[in-house]
Structure formats: structure tokens, C-alpha cells
């Protein structure tokens, strides 16, 4: 385990890219990243404690500040690099593109244009990137929300891609990891965004009935419709240290209730204390924890009765079937 992790780090420090970094380095301009990424490119500054670190060191440490342990936001590909086996990532359904059901326009700016700009800025087609890979050789499907894409708001494409990934999990009996960060539902798609909550959660219901595990990782920030749907319906819910997670944002709560909110309100630690998440997992430990859980859940047995006898059979498979399908999938993964 440790060996693999070191290998990941070494590759990164040499400036080489993973298989899934084949695309030229992606640029993101979210404010928090700007602060962290660019102090003359050589130095990275922690957005929380303003500690300076060599950019290379900072990235090697998956953008966790060495001094204050602040977990900075990650791009989707940076996120995958923290957990997946090198070269194992295969993206699916990247081709699904945003529609414009409301013919949404705001101050002369139409929604399709906004999407086009965001695509260009982020290098991805939509806020949710889906695919699968392996963690210490164990197959796992992963859906990563990238906050840089319109605050990773959940619209039709987000919901559709997640449901298709769940269907893939059902087809191959592959466990699912969702990595969530979101401002909530996508305004521009109105009620259809809200309905993605129902759609994704219903699909997870089927996954649950098939006894295929869903692991949910909540990252900063995670609010609204995402928290109130698929992200909170998981067999194991984890959160990153310091991540802000809730339903309503703190500003809305203060304005509505005129309550003074306690320090640490809605942080991952607050959720742990209130019994809402299973564990707060530091970024560096996540791969190891998930790998252990994949192994433990991988021995799941479904009790079944036939002619009065209790039968049991292994629930999660991968292996030959998986490898064969991988080749097919590569054809329409970019």
C-alpha cells in the first residue's frame, strides 16, 4: 500500500502525468486555487494560514498545508490522483452535454454560452466526472464533482451521469465511490435540477437492493440538493477535515433565524460529533481506508434461502468480466 502511494508521489514530483493526465494540464481560476497555486508558481500559499510552501511540495502533499493541515480544494483529476492506481482510470459518458430546458438568460448572458465558457476554463464538459479505476487492484466506480464547474451544481447532466454510473455498477457488480462538493442544485435548469435529487437517490436504492456498497466522501463545500440526496445515502459516509457540509448555508441560516452560529458549525468535525458521518478522513489516508473497506465489503455474502436451506454467495465480482469490458469502454472514453 505504502509503496504504491510513494510511487504516485514520485511520479508527480518528476512532473510526469498519470494516465488520466494525458490531456494537457488543466487550468482553473477559482479564487481559492489562484491564491494557493500562484505565488510566482514556485511558492504556494495556504489560503487559510498563508504559510508558504514549495508548489511542488504542496502538490505532492495533495494540497494539504503542512502547517495548519488545511485541505485545499482539488480539481477532479487531482482528486483521483490521491486514490487511484496509476493508469487505471477510465472515464465514461464524458460526451453527455448540457441542454437548456428553461432557455435561461441573465443580463444578456445565455446559459449555453455560460456553459461553453466554463468548459473552456475547466477542460471538462460538466461538473461531474464519472468513470472507474482500481485501488490496490480492486475495481471501483467513481463520480467526482469538480467545484470549479459552476460550483459543481447538480443539473440534468450531473444526475444523468451519476445514474448511468450506478447502472454500470449494477451491471458489473462494482462498488461505487461518490466524491461530492457542491453549491446545490443548478439554478439554470430550475425544477429539473431539483428532480435530479429524486433520480439519483432512486438509482442508489437499486444499488442498495443489489447489495453493492456506496461510499460517499464529502469535500469542501457540500451543500443543498447534493447533501440532501445521493451524498447522504451511502453505506459509509466520510468527510475531509474542515470540509463545510450542510443543507442551508450559514449566511442563510443567520439571516433567517438571527441565531449566532457556533464556531466550527457545519464542519466535518461538527457532523461527526452529531452522528451524521462515519469518519473524518485526512486526504493522505483516504486511499488506504477505502482500499481496506473495499476488501472488507468485498466479502459480502447475500443470505438467500432455497428449499429451506440458507445459501450464501459472494456479492462483488470484478476480474475477467471487468477486464474485458474495460477494453470496450476505452473506445468511448476520451
Amino acid at each position, binding site marked *: 500500500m505504502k509503496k504504491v502511494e510513494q510511487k504516485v508521489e514520485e511520479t508527480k514530483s518528476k512532473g510526469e502525468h498519470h494516465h488520466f493526465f494525458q490531456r494537457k494540464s488543466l487550468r482553473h481560476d477559482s479564487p481559492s486555487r489562484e491564491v494557493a497555486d500562484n505565488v510566482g508558481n514556485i511558492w504556494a500559499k495556504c489560503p487559510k494560514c498563508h504559510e508558504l510552501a514549495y508548489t511542488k511540495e504542496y502538490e505532492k502533499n495533495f494540497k494539504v498545508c503542512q502547517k495548519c493541515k488545511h485541505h485545499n480544494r482539488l480539481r477532479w483529476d487531482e482528486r483521483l490522483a490521491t486514490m487511484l492506481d496509476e493508469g487505471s482510470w477510465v472515464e465514461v459518458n464524458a*460526451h*453527455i*452535454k*448540457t*441542454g*437548456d*430546458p*428553461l432557455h435561461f*438568460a*441573465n*443580463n*444578456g448572458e445565455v446559459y449555453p454560452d455560460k456553459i461553453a465558457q466554463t468548459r473552456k476554463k475547466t477542460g471538462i464538459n460538466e461538473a461531474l466526472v464519472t468513470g472507474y479505476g482500481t485501488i490496490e487492484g480492486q475495481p471501483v466506480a467513481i463520480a467526482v464533482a469538480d467545484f470549479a464547474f459552476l460550483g459543481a451544481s447538480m*443539473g*440534468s*447532466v450531473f*444526475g*444523468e451521469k451519476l*445514474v448511468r454510473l450506478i447502472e454500470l455498477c449494477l451491471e458489473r457488480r462494482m462498488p461505487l465511490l461518490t466524491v461530492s462538493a457542491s453549491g446545490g*442544485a443548478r*439554478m439554470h*435548469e*430550475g*425544477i*429539473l*435540477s*431539483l*428532480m*435530479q*435529487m*429524486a*433520480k439519483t*437517490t*432512486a*438509482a*442508489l*436504492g*437499486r444499488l*442498495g*437492493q443489489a447489495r453493492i456498497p456506496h461510499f460517499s466522501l464529502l469535500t469542501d463545500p457540500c451543500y*443543498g*440538493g447534493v*447533501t*440532501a*440526496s*445521493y451524498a*447522504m*445515502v451511502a453505506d459509509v459516509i466520510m468527510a475531509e477535515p474542515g470540509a463545510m457540509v*450542510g*443543507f*442551508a448555508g450559514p449566511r442563510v*441560516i443567520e439571516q*433567517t*433565524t438571527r*441565531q449566532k*452560529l*457556533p464556531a466550527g*458549525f*457545519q464542519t466535518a468535525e461538527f457532523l461527526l460529533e*452529531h452522528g*451524521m458521518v462515519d469518519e473524518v478522513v485526512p486526504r493522505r489516508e483516504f486511499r488506504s481506508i477505502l482500499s481496506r473497506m473495499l476488501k472488507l465489503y468485498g466479502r459480502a455474502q447475500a443470505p438467500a434461502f432455497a428449499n429451506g436451506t440458507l445459501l450464501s454467495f459472494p456479492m462483488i465480482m470484478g476480474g475477467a468480466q471487468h477486464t474485458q469490458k474495460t477494453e470496450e469502454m476505452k473506445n468511448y472514453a476520451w
Partner: protein
Amino acid sequence: MPGKPRLIKKAQEVARHPSQVFRKPEHTEQTDDELDTMLPAADGALETEEASAIVGNTTDDTSETWKRVQLARHAERPKTLDYIKRLCPDFVEVHGDRRFGEDTAIVGGLAEFEGRTIMAIGHQKGKNTKENIARNFGMPSPEGYRKALRLMQQAEKFGFPVVCFIDTPGAYPGLEGEERGVAQAIAENLLVMSQLRVPIISVVIGEGGSGGALAIGLADRVLMLENSIYSGASPEASASILWRDSAKAPVAAMTMKITAQDLLRLEVIDEIISEPESGAHTEPAVTADAVKEAILRHLSEIEAHMTEAGPQAIEQLLANRYDKFRKMGVYEE
């Protein structure tokens, strides 16, 4: 099919469908005047024209939408308990989530409906300030959703259909609600409703505010009263997100497509239930009859399907419910 959002095309077909119940309101001048005097001051009406220009709406559309919003929120508009009382000769209200507390913003219990037992559940708003304070303005806490969940599971246990009445500005945003996991409570309702082995019918009777409404809205049939609204964010919240000015709510209401007519076009709801010309509150008995007729018709239809399907009835019901939500969304590929 590149370029063409598939749902729009289908939605246009729906709009032409003769069985559609939607009746375009014919506002006479007199009615408009009536509305204006009847309703609370039209907040933001002054900005309407200017703001309409921003998003390219016509002022007419905007003010018509805003009238509906005001009707949907009208203090005198019949509330959940009014409908239950008019629709059901017997209703035994029960309380509490058996976990933490009782939330008066959601009511529920077994009721008699046209010779059947049903589980009636709904958001409850008040008709005046005192009532509204007691009901927290129809904004539920986690306990409300967990009570609803408990009642739905009761219904499932005894094989009673569930009828939900939706009328809430949204789940209550507060410290305690967050501590006790309001998001988790909503998510769990969605999960359980998607698999509940009895028919579910939800009717939006006033305001369908965001996840707080959807939490009792994942149903086999979703119906809306003609002057009700259903949205991901309230017009005020949308306006403050879009233009940092909640006074532009009327424009946001138009832009966000939140009326029953919009939702039918977007294939999110199954039917619009007509209201009396000046709104549900002017003739509550007539409105209740229309609601009763619609619920009964849909329920009978589902029951007939289930009888036809025989031993596969429940699996079929669940498969249809799944497919209904599975296909929601507009995208291109």
C-alpha cells in the same frame, strides 16, 4: 440526435394533448383589479418592468406569473388540513417521529377516502400570524420529515396508499435542523419513497419549495393545482442569487419557470388541477372537489394497473415510479 434537447420536443407534444386539464386563466380586467386589492402589496412590482428587460421577458408574462405566486401563497388559500377535512370523512391525526420530537409543520395520519384507508401527509401552513408561528410557516424540521417517513412505512406495512399534500416555502434553515441532519432526513425520504411498496400520490396545493417539498414528492403521480408553484429555490432566493436583489423576485419567478403550466411542459408533473377563476380560496369547496376527483381518478388508475399486473403488481409499480424519475432531465449526446 445532436443539438436537439430531446425533452423539449416531447413536452410540446404534451402541451397539445387533448386530455390536458390545464385551462388558461382568462383574467378579465375586473379580476385583475380584484387580485390587486385582495393580495398583499405586490413586492417589487415597480422593478418589474425594468427587470423584465434584463432577462428579455415581457412584463405581461412576468406579472401573470407573479400573480400566480401570490395566489399560491395567499393567506386564505386552503391548506393541507382543509383538504383532508373536505376529502376524508374520517381522519385520525398522529404525532411525533419517535426519534426526537414533534414537528407541527408536517401533519399526517390515517384517513378514509372514498371507501379506502389512506395515509394522508402534508405540510401545514397557518392562515394568520398566530397559526403560522405555531406551524413554523410550514417549514419543517428534520422531525417533520422523519414523522412523514414513519407514517409512510406504516402505510406500507398495512398496504394503504399514501397521499401527500405539498405546501411549504422549504425546509427550515436553522442551527438545530443542521445538527439533527435535515439534509439526511430529506435524502432518506427520497430513498424510502422510491422503494415504498404502496401507491403514492402527491399534490402541490400551494408552494412547493425545493428539497423540503420534494421530500414528500417522490410519487407515482404528481399533481399541481393551477395556481401553485414548485421550484428549486424561492423566487426571492433566486433573485438574490441572480441579481443580489430579492425585490426582483417577480422576474425570477418568470425566469425560473415555476408555475404548474411550466412544470407540465417540462414533464415534471402529470396533471394540473383547475381552480376557480379567482383562485382556490374563493371557492374552497369547488377546489376540494376538483382535488378529490383528480386523486381518486389517479388512484383508481394505479389500482387498476396493479390488478392487471397480478402478482407482479408491486414490482411493476416500483419500476414505473423509477422510470418516471429516471427520465427527468434535459441533455444532449
